[in-house]
């Protein structure tokens, strides 16, 4: 198999310098794949994170959708400054009550965290937060 020279250079770069963190562009690409042709609007979904994070090892996070016009299929959480761009995916089934989940997440640094909610009617909604992390998660 012959790889075009440009691809080879890119591959070599990845192998030599293991990339340590996700990038906004990477998160952007993942969101575009997730949303597809659907319209993506701000609103409806809420991403609650503390403004000031005491310890990045366990940051209280809540994602929720208030009064959705159509049932919420899933909520996806992305972190632009973590080693991996995806934090969690929550899919809501028929026995779900309020479309909301609370959990605790790791944040490697101050960064933008994004939540995308996908509704059954095909619309996608976005919210983001910019927590300030004083003590980063142990990710070495």
């Amino acid at each position, binding site marked *: 198999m012959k790889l075009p020279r440009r691809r080879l250079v890119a591959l070599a770069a990845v192998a030599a310098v293991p990339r340590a963190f996700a990038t906004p562009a990477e998160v952007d690409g993942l969101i575009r794949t997730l949303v597809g042709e659907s319209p993506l609007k701000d609103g409806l979904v809420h991403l609650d994170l*503390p403004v*000031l994070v*005491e*310890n990045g*090892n*366990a*940051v*209280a996070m809540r994602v929720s959708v208030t009064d959705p016009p159509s049932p919420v299929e899933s909520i996806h959480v992305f972190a632009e400054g973590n080693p991996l761009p995806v934090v969690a995916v929550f899919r809501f089934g028929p026995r779900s009550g309020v479309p909301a989940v609370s959990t605790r997440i790791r944040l490697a640094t101050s960064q933008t965290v994004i939540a995308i909610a996908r509704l059954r009617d095909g619309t996608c909604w976005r919210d983001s937060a910019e927590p300030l992390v*004083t*003590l980063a998660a*142990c990710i070495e």
Partner: protein
Amino acid sequence: MIRHAAVPILILAAFLSIGASDRRSGYDDASPETRAMQDDDAANPAFLWVKQGEALWSGGCANCHGDVSLMRGVAARYPAFDLKRDRLMTVEQRINLCRTDHMAAPAYAWDDDRLLALSALVGLQSRGMPLAARPREPFMSEGAALFRERMGQLNMSCAQCHEERAGQRLAGSTIPEGHPNGYPEYRLEWQGMGSLYRRLRNCLNGVRAEVFTPDSREAASLALFLTVRANGMIVETPAVRP
């Protein structure tokens, strides 16, 4: 002789003159999110250890001690002096003595999850009660001396941070007054449970001082001093700290 007696009296007088309300628990310095974690037993990960402790308790300790609720008030007065064995001991050491002396079982390592589980369960029985350790000598004076002794490469004493600089910021965290009223506790930094000894080890490492061993006289004396210093404060075990 006279000098020896005067020191503890002075120290005691200093503590009796301040009520519990004049002291700040590490809880008060924690963020609202960390406090919320401690406030809700269903959200406090330390209760995973408490649950483990309950299983261990009914699988052995209950034979002699009955229901664990009978341990109410016990942890609040530790470290305590054991006349029979002529030594000061922490709750963890007491539990291990029950293993070796009464159950013919090996002692748990100081950082064993099972020891943390049992000490969390025993400590929980005293939650909400005021700390009430007895200032037994000479341990109390030895602990007080250690608290004020400059140690390590940074040549700092516990008192320099936890008295003189309490409330100030250090590398992103607030320096608390350093009270032992929540141990064993769940620490976000550890991503797990830890004993007061583990916490002291962290602080000793912080000033690059030599770390005394968990069963050393220094560790127990310092724990006694810290507890008497915090006497009257409410037991929060198992607390959550950043």
